[in-house]
């Protein structure tokens, strides 16, 4: 026998043909051979795994005897002292974010030197407090006189009392340093200090592994352990080393990810529902996030009238060489200022740049600005008189004209312009030349105050000199300005405003200001008394000014976020090339226009602001722009109006976002319009004079809360729409935690997503806040007036974005703290939020950082309608508490039933609110809520909805047009998806569907087609791919799908398949190795069982403990794999086996996950995550004789020699009845001791025969090994096994001598 097939469990062992196997495990197959499977070798070494070196984020010192450390300009800390202990220097905030696996040691590196007669004894201590106080865990050392770097501690040095991971992760962790001088003046110099923390290996399973290849081929491996740490291996630059990457995943979770647009997109789940926020990119930001929780405040910037009289328009005087007025030092028309080669550059050397007595004899003209216009006029009759005209300045500075003195006396101040014609050779004055120049920059003086700002567009109409008519942009306010009001107070009738300058000039006593947006003090007519119009500034002191408010009560100082505008009358603009002159120039210079001059009573014309903002009702929303380029859903809208007099919109209350937000965008509707647009960048439109500039509506930071935008509706509507199909930000959702993600058609498709009520506002607290510098209530929430709202505030979440933190500083337990609420009735678009006749539950991610869990207290959510007399007649519809006793110092998800539908009237009261607060919080206790979600109890997970992103915008998921409801024929959950033949297939538990990209339609309109109504997949990892075919594991078996109907390929092991613990079937993992042609299926298989009789007791496995391995070598196509089962019926009707067929073996490798991982050499290796709680990732290694030290229990059992047809074939030699098995010979090699058993008649006989002493194997085997038997029976199974850490075997031939039983061919009885 030289054919060794795989396990065939469906046919009775006694009926198996030659080559099939009734029992084998932990073996692998070649064509014509069977051998012990490869062993498992750990891939990653966790020894000396370190975080760091990290450097201090802050530090300080404790002086001793008034001696202090100082820092040199080079950043070296130094001190000189005489005797005893030096002052103490300390560093902390090293920024560690260690996983909870534990710390094995700490290493400190310090660099420096000393000067003095004797090296002082230096002392370094670990600290855990922000004041630098030492812990007494000290090490001593000595510096040398030259700079050296000393290393203290190490990978296993715990410094006597190592700190816990949580303590090292705090900013207080650090070191302090001092030295002791032996009584002589000594100086110390410290250059740098750094700390490394060495991390313990951990005792975890490995639940997920994934390769991520960047566009530049840089390769990374991500590993998720059951502790909840995602590790990263930099395969390209530092292979074999795992570094903790994300440490905030909950324990015992799994992951599924996709590489798309050069990023990895990871979903975390328990394999059935999403559990942690999905993450992506280099910062591991959340995949999608909520938009701002509150709208901006907007007012049209109206002045009451937009027409002013022009008192004057003046321009700069004509200028020339100060030493020789009326002339230039030189003039050159050439290729450049320093050559006389022909060209079109006209250089005016307008003054000498020589230095006398240490000073320039003439200073450069500070008014010359490249890009602005200048008029040049050479004297009549000079050689350049024909070039007289107005030009744009192309360069300015100093240069030495050709032929000038080589010393500094030859250098001259100059500017250049570009001429139309090209000069001839040597077109240079070479001497003083008559000429003057004049800049076109104009100053306009108005007859009354205006609030113009830089960038405003003005239109001059009816000027005394007609040529000035036109539209220009204001460059600068000479008087007047805009200020941010940061604080207000009122004392004895004097209101004080603290301000910062936004634009223009500082106010002065007598300035006229208009102030808006203040909220301090009493309100009259709905506005704070600090909001005034055209008030006169009384005094200005530093960054404060005062205004008289006689008769008003005193008001305490408070922080403000207001806006003030000082009116001005004098502004500058540049009219450009065709507007230049003085009064005397009228008529003297054709094509230019002299200055205007009028009076208040008789202005020289009028000027108006060029608004472009049509009159009408508008809406505005704020949008967060993240560092990933993602634009969030908009805030709720604000409605406001603009008039024909408005030329800009002043926006305040622009929400400040979480730390990953880099800009905010304000989108507007045009007047009376219904669609929103924003202008992504400033727009400059060429004009006859200077270009017209309109502002972007993007605030390019995450700090400013005010901005003024100038645009026209035409420009706005030509900019970016945010409510169009394919980019409808209003329909964007923050995707819930999902189980899987699959890329297709430049989109991401997310599945098994957590459901939630999407139109509550800012329940993740990532929707920002409104008051800069103050973390208080999250935007969209209101402090609850009917309960205590104190002691609640936003904090930066260690998970992502912000979280809401409630703290009781004591003394004593407080009944209610941190209360806030929002509407539960309708959202800003009148869409119902809480619906009647629906049960709701809450899932909340929460912790108590202080860890006080045994003294009572809880986090409460209420649905309440107060009615007209709050809170006396309030009606409580629902209340759900999460006690502190259920929380820990680490975040976790808690869930509970919230609203029972019978408790809510069929008409939801319009004043129904959702309120959140802490109840009975003990002193010192706290609650930190990272996020919460309210969801319909009956549908916690969107099982039949697959949510698709927009094209090339993978975080942007449209909750309407991106929702593929895969519920065509059933409501089975969509477990996974894959692409094949340009189609996207969806796998449900027992059915399969497909769809196809329709480039002009969003996915909700794509057609869904049924592929199979029986076959799907069982878990999110229970399918894998081949060469344009797919293999899936489902309850019925293992199926291959190549585009036709799914074909079963596991019928031969169906009894094994049926024995799987299907309650944990969703944990099955399928991996297909197209290179070595093997299929690996991780299954939870109760043991022991008939196919693993020696396995350890594990009757109810909840995670895969066995790998079903199928070798399909030489089966090169899906069709071959479908057809080539282990046995078939020959043409003659005989049951036969064949070698090139599917060959199964059970591998006893407990493993929750495996994946093919790209290695530095470009190959892809199967990495197997351990299921033995040792934190290791394994690789199959054919040279390894053990599984990381554990024996590989390889066993192979042949069919029963020989079948009846074979016996008939050998006629009179071998009996059809009882036979005598006399002798055997084996082509077998390997290592260690092989156990050979001969099993007579039955594969599990009561009395098996075992070859005495076993067979000592060698590799290579010298010759066939021979074993005599002399056994009688109907058939004989041969069983080969090794079970020792240093043993394996390879069997490729069996020769068995069989004859008729010489004693009794039949037994003669039953």
């Amino acid at each position, binding site marked *: 026998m030289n054919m060794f097939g795989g396990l065939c469990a469906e046919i009775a062992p006694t009926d198996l043909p030659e080559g099939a196997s009734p029992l084998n495990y932990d073996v692998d197959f070649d064509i014509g051979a069977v051998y012990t499977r490869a062993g498992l070798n750990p891939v990653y070494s966790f020894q000396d795994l370190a975080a760091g070196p990290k450097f201090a984020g802050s530090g300080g010192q404790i002086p001793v005897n008034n001696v202090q450390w100082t820092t040199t300009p080079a950043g070296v800390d130094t001190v000189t002292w005489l005797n005893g202990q030096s002052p103490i220097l300390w560093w902390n905030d090293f920024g560690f974010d260690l996983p909870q696996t534990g710390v094995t040691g700490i290493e400190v590196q310090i660099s420096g030197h000393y000067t003095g007669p004797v090296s002082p004894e230096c002392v370094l201590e670990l600290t855990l407090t922000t004041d630098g106080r030492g812990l007494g865990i000290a090490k001593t050392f000595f510096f040398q006189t030259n700079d050296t770097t000393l290393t203290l501690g190490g990978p296993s040095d715990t410094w006597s009392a190592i700190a816990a991971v949580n303590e090292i992760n705090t900013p207080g962790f650090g070191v302090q340093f001092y030295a002791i001088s032996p009584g002589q003046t000594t100086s110390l110099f410290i250059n740098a200090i750094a700390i490394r923390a060495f991390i313990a290996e951990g005792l975890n399973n490995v639940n997920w592994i994934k390769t991520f290849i960047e566009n530049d081929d840089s390769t990374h491996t991500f590993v998720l352990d059951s502790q909840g740490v995602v590790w990263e291996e930099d395969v390209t630059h530092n292979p074999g080393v795992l570094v903790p990457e994300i440490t905030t995943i909950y324990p015992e979770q799994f992951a599924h990810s996709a590489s798309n647009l050069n990023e990895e997109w990871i979903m975390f789940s328990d394999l059935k529902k999403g559990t942690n926020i999905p993450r992506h990119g280099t910062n591991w930001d959340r995949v999608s996030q909520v938009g701002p929780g509150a709208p901006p405040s907007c007012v049209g910037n109206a002045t009451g009238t937009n027409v002013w009289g022009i008192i004057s328009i003046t321009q700069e005087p004509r200028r020339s060489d100060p030493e020789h007025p009326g002339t230039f030092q030189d003039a050159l028309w050439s290729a450049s200022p320093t050559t006389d080669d022909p060209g079109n550059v006209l250089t005016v050397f307008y003054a000498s740049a020589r230095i006398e007595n240490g000073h320039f004899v003439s200073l450069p003209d500070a008014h010359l600005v490249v890009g602005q216009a200048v008029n040049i006029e050479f004297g009549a009759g000079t050689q350049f008189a024909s070039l007289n005209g107005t030009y744009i300045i192309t360069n300015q500075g100093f240069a030495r004209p050709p032929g000038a003195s080589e010393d500094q006396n030859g250098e001259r101040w100059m500017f250049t312009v570009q001429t139309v014609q090209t000069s001839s050779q040597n077109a240079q004055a070479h001497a003083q030349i008559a000429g003057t120049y004049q800049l076109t920059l104009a100053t306009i003086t108005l007859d009354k105050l205006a609030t113009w700002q830089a960038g405003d567009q003005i239109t001059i109409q009816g000027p005394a000199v007609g040529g000035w008519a036109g*539209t220009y942009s204001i460059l600068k306010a000479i008087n007047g300005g805009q200020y941010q009001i940061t604080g207000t107070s009122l004392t004895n009738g004097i209101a004080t405003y603290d301000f910062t300058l936004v634009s223009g000039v500082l106010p002065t006593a007598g300035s006229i200001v208009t102030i808006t947006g203040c909220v301090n003090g009493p309100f009259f007519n709905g506005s704070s008394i600090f909001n005034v119009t055209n008030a006169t500034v009384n005094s200005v002191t530093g960054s404060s000014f005062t205004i008289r408010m006689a008769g008003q009560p005193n008001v305490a100082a408070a922080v403000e976020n207001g806006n003030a505008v000082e009116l001005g009358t004098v502004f500058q603009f540049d009219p450009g090339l065709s507007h230049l002159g003085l009064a005397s120039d009228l008529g003297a210079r054709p094509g230019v226009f002299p200055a205007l001059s009028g009076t208040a009573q008789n202005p020289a014309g009028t000027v108006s602001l060029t608004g*472009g903002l*049509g009159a009408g009702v508008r809406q505005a929303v704020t949008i967060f722009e993240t560092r990933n380029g993602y634009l969030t*859903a908009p805030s709720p*809208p604000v409605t406001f109006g603009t008039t024909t007099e408005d030329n800009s919109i002043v926006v305040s209350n622009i929400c400040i976002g979480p730390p990953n937000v880099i800009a905010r965008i304000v989108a507007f509707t*045009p*007047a*009376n*319009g*219904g*669609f929103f647009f924003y202008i992504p960048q400033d727009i400059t*439109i060429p004009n006859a004079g200077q270009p*017209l500039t309109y502002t972007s509506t993007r605030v390019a930071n995450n700090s400013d809360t005010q901005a003024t935008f100038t645009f*026209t*509706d*035409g*420009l706005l*509507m030509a900019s970016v729409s945010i*409510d*169009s*199909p*394919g980019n409808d930000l*209003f*329909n*964007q*959702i923050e995707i819930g935690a999902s189980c899987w993600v699959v890329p297709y058609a430049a989109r991401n498709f997310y599945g098994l997503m957590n*459901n*939630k*009520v*999407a*139109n509550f506002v800012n329940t993740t607290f990532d929707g920002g806040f409104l008051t800069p510098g103050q973390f208080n209530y999250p935007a969209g929430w209101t402090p609850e007036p009917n309960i205590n709202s104190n002691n609640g505030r936003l904090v930066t979440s260690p998970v992502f974005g912000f979280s809401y933190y409630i703290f009781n500083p004591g003394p004593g337990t407080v009944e209610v703290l941190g209360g806030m609420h929002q509407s539960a009735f309708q*959202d*800003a*678009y*009148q*869409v*119902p*939020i809480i*619906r009647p*006749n*629906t049960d*709701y539950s809450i899932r909340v991610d929460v912790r108590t950082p202080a860890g006080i869990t045994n003294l009572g207290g809880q986090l409460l959510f209420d649905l309440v309608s107060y009615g007209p007399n709050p809170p006396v007649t309030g009606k409580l519809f629902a209340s759900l508490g999460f006690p502190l006793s259920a929380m820990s110092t680490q975040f976790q998800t808690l869930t509970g039933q919230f609203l029972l539908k019978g408790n809510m009237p069929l008409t939801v009261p319009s004043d129904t609110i959702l309120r959140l607060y802490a109840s009975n919080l003990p002193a010192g206790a706290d609650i930190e809520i990272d996020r919460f979600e309210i*969801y*319909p109890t*009956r*549908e916690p997970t*969107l099982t039949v*909805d697959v949510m698709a992103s927009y094209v090339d915008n993978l975080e942007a998921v449209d*909750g*309407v*047009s991106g929702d593929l409801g895969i519920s065509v024929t059933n409501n089975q959950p969509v477990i996974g998806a894959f692409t094949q033949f340009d189609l996207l297939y969806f796998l449900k538990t027992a059915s399969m569907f497909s769809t196809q990209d329709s*480039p*002009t*339609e969003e996915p909700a*309109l794509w057609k869904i087609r049924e592929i199979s109504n029986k076959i799907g997949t069982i878990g999110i990892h229970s399918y894998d791919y081949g060469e344009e075919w797919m293999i899936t594991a489902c309850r019925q078996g293992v199926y291959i799908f190549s585009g036709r109907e799914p074909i079963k390929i596991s019928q031969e092991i169906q009894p094994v398949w049926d024995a799987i613990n299907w309650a944990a079937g969703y944990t099955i993992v399928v991996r297909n190795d197209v290179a070595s042609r093997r299929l690996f299926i991780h299954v939870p298989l109760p043991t022991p069982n008939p196919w693993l009789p020696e396995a350890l007791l594990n009757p109810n496995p909840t995670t895969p403990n066995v790998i079903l391995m199928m070798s399909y070598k030489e089966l090169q196509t899906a069709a071959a794999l479908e057809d080539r089962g282990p046995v078939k019926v020959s043409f003659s009707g005989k049951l036969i086996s064949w070698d090139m067929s599917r060959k199964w073996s059970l591998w006893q490798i407990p493993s929750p996950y495996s994946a093919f991982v790209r290695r530095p050499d470009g190959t892809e290796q199967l990495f197997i995550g351990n299921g033995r709680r040792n934190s290791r990732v394994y690789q199959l290694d054919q040279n390894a004789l053990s599984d990381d030290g554990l024996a590989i229990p390889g066993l192979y059992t042949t069919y029963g020699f020989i079948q009846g047809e074979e016996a008939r074939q050998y006629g009179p030699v071998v009996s059809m009845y009882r036979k005598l098995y006399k002798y055997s010979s084996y082509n077998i090699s390997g290592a260690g001791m092989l156990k050979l058993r001969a099993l007579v008649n039955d594969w599990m006989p009561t009395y098996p025969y075992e070859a005495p002493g076993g067979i000592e194997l060698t590799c290579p085997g010298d010759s066939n090994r021979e074993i005599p038997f002399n056994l009688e029976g109907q058939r004989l199974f041969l069983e080969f096994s090794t079970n020792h850490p240093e043993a394996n075997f390879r069997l490729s031939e069996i020769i068995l001598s069989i004859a008729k039983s010489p004693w009794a061919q039949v037994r003669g009885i039953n």
Partner: protein
Amino acid sequence: MSLLDLSKHTQAIQVRDRETAAALRLVENAINHMAKSSGSSPIGEPSAPSPIQQLDVKVSGETAHATITDNSPLTRNIHYFLEYATEPQFLAPHIEHLGTSRGRIINLPTNGDDGTPQNYYFRAYSQYPSSKPSEKVTFGQSHAPTPVVMQGVPTNGGTNMTLLPSTGSGTAAGNGQQGGFGFGKFQNRPAVLPKRSVGTNAGR
């Protein structure tokens, strides 16, 4: 313009079934021919045409004659659209579908309902039936369209009629506020829903 390409599949099919492969080639050619003839694309969306070069408007009485100059490379079934509004921002313009013609003579009232003369502003663009529209070109400067005033009969000052609000065209919004859409920028116009219509999935 992306055409249907079944060659990869027909080659594979031809090995097994030449008749089916030949039939598929015929279908492929027919679909592509139909797409070319109609200025559409069987796969995806054709590129928007290049912008027209110029729009001219001439007025006499209450008749305006608008002509489009378009020297861009074209394929058959190019369509042109003319839009006019009574304010320069084209907040809700009225749309004239010119078909494949590059000119149109239209009558417009000189005054509004109250007898106040109205300014008219014009712009135009081109589009293939399944492409996005081209960039719009305005009569006058893009940021400062030139107003056109109808010249009603001097004896009575011209017709008084304020136009009804525009209702748009194609798959653009029905309130006329999506000017410049021509046939539409999107294949489908979903039913009008409140913004942020993403609510709970409860009760499905």
